[in-house]
């Protein structure tokens, strides 16, 4: 009897430890996170090339919409401060601040993700097991996000997004897009993998990933918070208050824009799922890009002038 009681107590202790261990896997997101990985340095900062869809599983709708998107649309007064859809967390340059919303018992009922810039709206990730509202509910740039834990990974499902851009070169995203984020923390670093499904403009899921790093106080996050004040844009004039994206005029000849710099053939720049896979590289055998003359060392850590000394 004594041994049985002892065994029961030991088992309950073990169960408590196991339960606690599972809880520990649900890591704390709180804090300021900034991008650490180096992929696509130009696209993440200054913006991508107008007709560059290589590696994007764009379908014909998306390709046509991207190629015909007016390059100066973001200069329009009513769109200069327009935010990006939620996928901008991985496509754009900003990290953000995660904070917990807790109930009276201290349980996390939601995570909030704010941004240091005007162009990504705050997100609320509901962790209380709720379902998203119906598909005809209000669509916003931040969308509606619900989260769940899969062991040590927070899986966020975002829907109810507004029409927007997947990339700032005119590649569109629709209000039927759904995003799935996988967040896994390793000490002061966190990997985020994003799966974008868009039945309107993509022929396959668009998958990307990024590593973020936990930093200290708010002052460490990408310098000052960036606001946006709409202003009339005059060609060649800078008012110092906003930095609307300036894309070259959209013309049919733009299909050769990237060829002019990198000599990439349209079969590559037109994108599509096939351009994501290794076998596509076989079609480019013999292709030789010119020596680099532009943005050859752009990197947030090591400016171009720093390594040219």
């Amino acid at each position, binding site marked *: 009897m004594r041994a049985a009681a002892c065994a029961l107590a*030991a088992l309950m202790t073990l169960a408590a430890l196991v339960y606690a*261990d599972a809880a520990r*896997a649900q890591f704390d997101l709180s804090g300021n996170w900034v991008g650490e990985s180096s992929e696509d340095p130009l696209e993440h900062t200054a913006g991508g090339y107008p007709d560059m869809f*290589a590696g994007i599983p764009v379908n014909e709708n998306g390709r046509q919409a991207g190629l015909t998107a007016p390059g100066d649309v973001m200069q329009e007064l009513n769109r200069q401060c327009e935010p990006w859809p939620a996928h901008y967390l991985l496509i754009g340059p900003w990290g953000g601040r995660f904070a917990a919303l807790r109930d009276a018992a201290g349980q996390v009922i939601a995570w909030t993700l704010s941004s240091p810039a005007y162009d990504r709206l705050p997100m609320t990730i509901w962790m209380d097991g709720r379902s998203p509202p119906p598909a005809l509910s209000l669509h916003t740039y931040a969308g509606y996000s619900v989260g769940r834990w899969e062991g040590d990974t927070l899986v966020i499902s975002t829907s109810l997004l507004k029409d927007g851009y997947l990339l700032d070169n005119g590649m569109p995203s629709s209000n039927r897009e759904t995003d799935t984020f996988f967040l896994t923390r390793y000490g002061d670093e966190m990997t985020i993998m994003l799966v974008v499904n868009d039945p309107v403009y993509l022929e396959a*899921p668009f998958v990307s990933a990024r590593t973020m790093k936990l930093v200290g106080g708010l002052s460490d996050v990408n310098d000052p918070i960036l606001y946006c004040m709409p202003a009339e844009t005059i060609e060649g004039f800078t008012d110092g208050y906003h930095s609307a994206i300036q894309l070259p005029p959209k013309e049919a000849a733009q299909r050769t824009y990237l060829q002019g710099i990198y000599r*990439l053939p349209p079969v590559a720049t037109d994108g599509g799922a096939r351009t994501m896979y290794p076998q596509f590289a076989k079609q480019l055998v013999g292709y030789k*890009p010119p020596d680099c003359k532009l943005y050859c060392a752009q*990197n947030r850590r090591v400016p171009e002038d720093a*390594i040219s000394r």
Partner: protein
Amino acid sequence: MGVRHIAGQAAGWPCLLACLVASAALLPGVPSAAEGQDEADAGAPTSAQVSAAAAAAANGAGHAMRPRPSARARAPFDITGYWVSLVTQNWRYRMIVPGHGDYAGIPINAKAKRFADAWRAAADIAAGRQCEAYGAPALMQDPERLHILWQDDETLRVDTDEGMQTRLLRFRPAASDAPADGRTDGPTDGPTDGPTASSLQGDSQARWALSAVANSLNRAPEPNARLYGSLVVITGHLMPGLLRKNGIPYGVGARMTEYWKLHALGAAQWLLISTKMTDPEYLAAPYVYDSIFQKQADGSGWDPSPCSLTS
């Protein structure tokens, strides 16, 4: 209340001691008093370990601990099979050979720039060094297919069709399965400095970072409770090589820490490899990049190709 009564009064101190012994066996990084010398069981518990620890506690001692399962048996996910690169990022630097002088995205220092500016592919091709761009730091960025299999119970083998390379990820028997804590390396992690010869793929030490046991809705693990976690790989003893086929170098002191993680959505599975590379000789800051692979049903797309510096 009932639990406290049983544990504190009916069972008494011997039982409390047994609980402590069992607890110590489960705490990551804390060897149990009974098996002290065996770091193997200090990691997150598997269902089997839990059962063994409970049995030991019930016997009032910790002598019944079973041998630690192999790395293969402890795997929290099945990483084996065929995988294909998804080149959705850094396309211009991965699918084609970047132009001479195109160093964007890699935090090289001035010495690396001088090296790359002076580098010419023709000279290395003539010298038979085509594979210098297929070392471990560059290999996972190549557009390629992977075939991952267990070479033995403690070694994962990763074959690539592009460049026909093989990486061996070796698990050390004493390595802890504790959660990844963000260390890039340390006295007990990764290859140690020593006489090990450098090689193209270097010496890769692997461990599982298991940070959860079971469905958190359950108060106790089920017999076949699912384990979650990541594969942590630390690589050193690398021969000098190229990060890009336009001459960006890395040196003998380069080390890399990789986190291999499986993600699934519906029937699709992806392998995310997040890499942080340091190189005191040629990098001004850590080089961090993420590679994504998609699970394949079989090896039908497998296309072995020799090393090349021109494609």
